[in-house]
């Protein structure tokens, strides 16, 4: 009955406020990655004051207002901004905890994230457990689990529910990080610039260019 299901699915997914990345919506991501299709979706969304955006790293497409015309739109964006700031602390906390689990590699879109790795990390040490307990009492990760293992499982589930992780395979223990993390890193950069946090950590990053 529908002549172009990909177009419809893509538009509906974007309009539902989801980030279209390769790991959560592989087909839609590839559909949107082609210019004619991207333009078609964009033209469609433009007619209702919306447009397709892509994260800086190119890992996700999403839908934004072209202009904040109505008060409703302004208040929606303001509400979302406040929510973004509120949920940022637990997310940064989780990324910090993950750094010790992943040996310094921040979680990136497309990374495989295994429950077992985190289970092993809580077996190993106190600091990870303490941080996990702290996160389990915080905003989006809030849960009533009393054991570290239960807390890890709960946090993974919350991350999956919020679209940051998608399950891979049938084991229920292997996840892949989605393009949602790209938003966290972009916000992180903006905050770092505002707080002037990046001055002393950016010099190293330039080294690659100078070689």
């Amino acid at each position, binding site marked *: 009955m529908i002549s172009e299901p990909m177009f419809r699915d893509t538009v509906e997914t974007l309009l539902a406020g989801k980030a279209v990345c390769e790991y959560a919506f592989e087909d839609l991501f590839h559909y949107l990655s082609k210019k004619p299709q991207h333009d078609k979706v964009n033209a469609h969304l433009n007619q209702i004051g919306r447009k397709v955006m892509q994260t800086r790293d190119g890992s996700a497409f999403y839908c934004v207002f072209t202009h904040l*015309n109505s008060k409703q739109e302004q208040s929606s964006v303001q509400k979302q901004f406040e929510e973004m700031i509120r949920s940022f602390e637990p997310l940064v906390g989780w990324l910090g905890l993950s750094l010790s689990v992943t040996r310094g590699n921040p979680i990136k879109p497309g990374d495989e994230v295994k429950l077992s790795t985190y289970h092993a990390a809580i077996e190993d040490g106190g600091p990870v457990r303490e941080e996990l307990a702290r996160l389990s009492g915080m905003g989006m990760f809030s849960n009533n689990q009393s054991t570290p293992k239960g807390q890890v499982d709960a946090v993974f589930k919350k991350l999956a529910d919020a679209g940051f992780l998608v399950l891979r395979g049938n084991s229920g223990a292997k996840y892949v990080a989605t393009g949602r993390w790209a938003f966290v890193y972009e916000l992180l950069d*903006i905050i770092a610039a505002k707080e002037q946090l990046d001055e002393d950590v950016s010099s190293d990053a330039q080294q690659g260019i100078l070689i």
Partner: protein
Amino acid sequence: MNEQERAAVELLSLVGKHARLIASAYFNERTFPDDEKGGQIIERLIRARLARRNDEHGEPRLNSALASLIDHGLKNARRLQSGSGLELMLKEIEEKIDSYRAARAANAQDDALGILRTIEEDAGDLVEALHETAQTIWRQVDREFSWITSLELKIHENKKIIDRVKGLLGALDDLGPLAINHLAGKDPALINIFHRARLSHVMAECRNDISDALDRLSQMLFAFNETRKQGRLIQKLNAMYQNSTGYLPGDRLEAGDVAHLLFAEPLPLFGTIDVEDDRQLSLATELLKGLRKTAIGVEIQDDAPPVDASGGSPAEYMLTENPTHAAVDALFCKAIDEGSVRAMDEYDASRCGCASDVWLHSVIGYREGLDSQKRQLFQLRFDEAPDSSFSGVFNVADIELNFTLP
């Protein structure tokens, strides 16, 4: 194990057992130390043809086959080392060329020919080593240090390889085609050898290859450093959150700073589902209830009529619990009856409860959802008004929906 294999094992065991003595002879112009010369070991080596005497009373010397084997093994080992291996190989060629010229100057033609043969072998080895070096580097580059898990170690290893590649590039610059031409001079035999081995060509190729590898390594190092920077930012911000209770980066941020990251408000979803029978219909209805509950937080009321049979094909029903969808459907029916309708004229009457932009979007979306044959029957004409922000963007204010039969 057959007899030949057993003999080979015995031979190699003998070499292994007397490795020090053999190595000492190899590095002492193939002759054995004086205190071993009359000993039983030497006699055993001679019996095994690992050493030989030119005549009955001659001085025992390492067999040339065994010396060649050691020679080859050492060259390979050297080749596996960094750029210095290549430099050594060229240095060796250079030295042999000097000996070759000296032999020719002394009219020792046989010796000159012998040296020339080894130069040819060395040139072949150098070409092989160049290929191998470029391939080894690219193998490491292609694996993107995936064999290392720690980011810090990845950076360390990357820098190490970059240093090695830079050393190699320097060495290749020194050994470049000009240096090869200089080595060969005007000697036709040497020119011929280097030409046959395609030494200049292979060197240039190898240089390009590892120069590309250096670019990739630099890009990778940049990416690793960026990742490290992100990690450090995470740690810093995390520390700020933990050390200053109530810290909110939002105090210094405004929505406008991150406007490009803020999603447009989700719109209610609607669509159509093809169902085969009553069982599928009830399953689809349940699914839809669940979907709406999770997607937009609205649960379909149980007393609301969940489905409306479209009345056409007995095998096809349309879920029309979304009032916007039903109203848009009615608008298209009206267009069929009247030939032309304006969407905003019907908006109030539709009582669909959605915002006007959603209504217009639904009209466009409905048409997009039709199959191409049906879509051709409906044409949309947009009434556009300039956006209030004077940005050059035009917003759709109304849509004229026209129905024409082909």
